[in-house]
């Protein structure tokens, strides 16, 4: 009996040790990178996700736990391309953690590993709140996830070489499942090709390019600036003769502009999950893509 107790005690101590000391502390700026990290590192990482699907990743309120998480992180995984420019530099400075400062192995910027679209040819301030580094919402194209997964595994192997072989096998397993799923999605999405949609902000450009969706208008003609009366009139004039199938937006975007448009020209308002947690069923990257495609399929006409 005493022997059994001792073994249980050792086991508990052992578990506690693996979950605290040996685990890699990872700080993910957005839920999609938290989920990818979960796929690639599993229980070898303790993951903190800074934003939820209902928070605009452009903006973030400082909470003590975020500073604490950044301070103890071994690795931060963020989108980059200026998406978090409003808060991440401040957070990194405040955290004072050398491991995760820009340029160090503990600072992983996903957008560096994909081909970005909508990079402005000239930076003209009159065009809107544009990102000179291109559209940062890269995660809704499975090819981008594939590339980021490769790069992220390499980074994990650099930071934690002892588990290098494990990371490789987890990556291989993920890539196999991901490529199967991508094949399925692309098959299903044949029916979506050419689907005409209006969009609140340019949040879905990568998905549109991948699936061949036709984003005929955005409700923020200049990103980040509310539309003017003339722009809205032009929008109505453009869309009324041939209305799109619906107007899409993320869960965190203001619902008023798309409500306005959907009421005026009688089209569906579609709130896509956009990232993990955006709908109750979007629990990981796979279900996020499933849900998104299913919701679009419902509105084909």
């Amino acid at each position, binding site marked *: 009996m005493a022997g059994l107790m001792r073994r249980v005690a050792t086991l508990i101590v052992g578990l506690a040790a693996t979950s605290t000391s040996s685990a890699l502390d990872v700080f993910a700026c957005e839920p999609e990178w938290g989920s990818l990290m979960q796929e690639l590192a599993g229980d070898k990482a303790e993951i903190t996700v800074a934003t939820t699907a209902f928070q605009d990743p452009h903006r973030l*309120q*400082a*909470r*003590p*736990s975020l*500073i*604490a998480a950044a*301070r103890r992180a071994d690795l931060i995984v963020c989108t980059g391309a200026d998406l978090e420019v*409003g*808060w991440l530099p*401040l*957070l990194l*400075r*405040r955290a004072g953690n050398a491991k995760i400062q820009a340029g160090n192995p503990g600072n992983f910027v996903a957008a560096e590993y994909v081909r970005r679209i909508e990079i402005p040819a000239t930076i003209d*301030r*009159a065009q*809107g*709140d*544009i990102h000179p580094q291109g559209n940062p919402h890269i995660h809704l194209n499975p090819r981008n996830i594939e590339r980021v997964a490769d790069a992220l595994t390499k980074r994990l192997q650099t930071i934690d070489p002892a588990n290098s072989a494990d990371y490789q096998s987890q990556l291989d397993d993920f890539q196999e499942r991901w490529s199967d799923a991508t094949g399925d999605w692309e098959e299903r999405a044949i029916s979506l090709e050419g689907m005409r949609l209006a969009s609140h902000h340019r949040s879905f450009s990568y998905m549109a390019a991948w699936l061949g969706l036709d984003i005929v208008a955005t409700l923020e003609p*200049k*990103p*980040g*600036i509310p539309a*003017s009366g003339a722009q809205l009139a032009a929008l109505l004039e453009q869309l009324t003769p041939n209305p799109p199938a619906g107007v899409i937006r993320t869960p965190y975007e203001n619902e008023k502009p798309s409500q306005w448009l959907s009421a005026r020209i009688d089209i569906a308002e579609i709130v896509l999950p956009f990232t993990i947690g955006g709908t109750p069923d979007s629990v990981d990257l796979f279900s996020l893509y499933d849900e998104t495609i299913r919701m679009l399929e419902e509105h084909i006409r």
Partner: protein
Amino acid sequence: MNEFELSIIGPAFLASLLVLSTHVPLGTEVLRRGIIFIDLAIAQVAGLGVIAADTMGWEAEGWLVQIAAVSAALIAAYVLHWTDKRWPDIQEALIGVCFVLAATAGILMLTENPHGGEHLKELLVGQVLWVNVDQLLPVAIVNALVLIAWFWMRDHLRGFGFYALFAFAVTASVQLVGIYLVFACLIIPAISTRHISRRSIRIICGYGVGIVGCLAGLILSVRGDLPAGAVIVWSLAMSALIFAWLVWPMIRHKDHSAETNIG
């Protein structure tokens, strides 16, 4: 309180102290004159100055941003000083109009220059938890000068001087802690101490209310993992209520009985 909590609270608390240092005395004057929304108006105009500088193509970085902000705030201070002399009976209403004009001028200018919007946000939505110690030194210098001017010449600060001091104090503070907390630090300690007739005691009690409120708010923020600026506004209000309803009546009572004993 462990080391980590202290390291989060430390810079934020120092920033709150700096804001309180100028806003408690200025707040008593603002309340006396009945122009309580002046800080919102001045801060908004300061933001407008930054957008304007950016629109004119001055790459607004560091000192240039500050110069643009303070210049605009000083112009607003001068205009408000002039309206105060010209139409004192509608001064508060004019301050309100100044606020909406500045805020909407910002929107109009941003249609041409959206990057100004980032500067405007930086200026008006400071977050007290993200303050770094190296940001505090310039504000400390500005506030020290404002305080020296205030305590030296407050009885002669009839006209533009008061508004100008205000422009400097608000522009410096709002970038550290954001507009809500600046407003709370200005008005709440001043209200809770308004029955104290001796000016020096009133200021000391106002500092006390402010310091207790800020410290309590920061501790609540760390323990409950809440956005610090918003919690501090609430804890300042609580601190003010407790002072006005419990602490001050007790002190006054003792004072009175002491006086009658002597008498």
